[in-house]
């Protein structure tokens, strides 16, 4: 059986997905979980994905946003604030 991916590894992969699609796609927690489960296969389960999201948020690399639903994004200057 393949060795389980570390939280850091999954968190880095999530961050790359969010960064690479900035301005084109907004990610929900469920979308990120599905994406990394697909990417890592059996090496990543839902608990690791959940911990990775928490790591992204608590490190400040990403923030939760609300635009009709809750999304995870890289912090940016908000348009509404201008």
């Amino acid at each position, binding site marked *: 059986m393949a060795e389980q991916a570390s939280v850091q590894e999954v968190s880095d992969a999530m961050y790359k997905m969010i960064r690479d699609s900035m301005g084109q796609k907004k990610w*929900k*927690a*469920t979308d990120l*979980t599905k994406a990394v489960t697909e990417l890592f296969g059996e090496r990543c389960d839902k608990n690791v994905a*959940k911990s990775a*999201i*928490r790591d992204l*948020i*608590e490190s*400040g690399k990403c*923030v*939760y*946003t*609300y*635009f*009709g*639903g*809750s999304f995870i*994004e890289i*912090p*940016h200057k*908000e348009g*509404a*604030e201008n």
Partner: protein
Amino acid sequence: MPEKKRKTPKLDELEKGAWPSFVKEIKTAAEKNAMADDLLGQLERSYEEKIGHWKHGGIVGVLGYGGGVIGRYSDLPEEFPNVSHFHTMRINQPAGWFYTSDVLRKLCDIWEKHGSGLTNMHGSTGDLVFLGTKTDELEPTFKELTDLGFDLGGSGSDVRTPSCCCGMARCEWACYDTMALTYFLTMHYQDELHRPAFPYKWKFKMSGCPNDCVAAIARSDMSIIGTWRDDIQMDKAAVTEYAKSGMNIQKDVVGNCPAKCMEWDGKEIKIDNKACVKCMHCINAMPKALSPGKDRGACILIGAKAPIVEGALLSSVLIPFIKLEPPYTELIELVGKIHEVWSENGKNRERVGEFIQRVGMGNFLEAIGVEPIPEMVAHPRENPYVFYEEYFEEEDNNG
């Protein structure tokens, strides 16, 4: 502090009449708070132009949390600079909304220091709502709230702050301890409450009896409503007292029973308890004579939502009767299965009730591993076509 009193002829109309006025309260706050004063100005402008001037949502929050702060900005920041940011904070209320006056004063002191001083007691979700602050004040407010033993509530696509009626604290009809369950669910789902991970919001509401004082059946994705499964308790002497005091038991109690399961012969009430639908009418009408049975628990219903514009749904029965006592293992396992199926298959902004409508109750029940039973039928089907799998099997075997 505003130098000159603002003229608000439109808002002044809302102070007339015998009822309490939010305008009066904002004006009082405006005497010493510039945010409240600019709020009056922007609101007057909205009434003049018949258009709202708020922008909603966005990026604001406290570190680590995805809920509890609702971003709000003015689209007239030059004219009303003190409400250019006017974020709402939802504070997780104590179960049953019990506070000491000392704590209420401290909460208000925190909000006068960091925000507009205006509150909603309470918002429709149940939280204590702090109305209007700036982004820079969010973390200091949160720090003072947590020092006082409070936490933020839910918002966005997360478990919203669970709420309940006052239950066994003040009501003899509570069929389970709503406040204990609310506290338990709040603590058990801390992660889901603060870190949005669902397709959309999820609300738990707990009512102690079928009177449903928190309107759980109309507003919550999972409504947990107290009920009983034995006979209504009756004090015959008290029934006689009601009759002697002039109550028209036939007309006002028996005649209003929706299940027609009661009879009154002028001396005694007889109840066919098997036919009772637990509407609570007779118990509400004769509280000294009738009360819920002794074998008490709750009915779990699923799928309500109360949107502002359209698409309201009432919840429907999922588990007709469950004993609700710590550690609530059966309930938590059920909720876990529902969350898994809905998170996996729900669309963005799709409440669980809408999800069930889309996939069908039969498929939903199969996915969460619950057997269908007659109590789940919300209303008779609207088409005459009935399909039973065994008929097809029989045809296949014969054919």
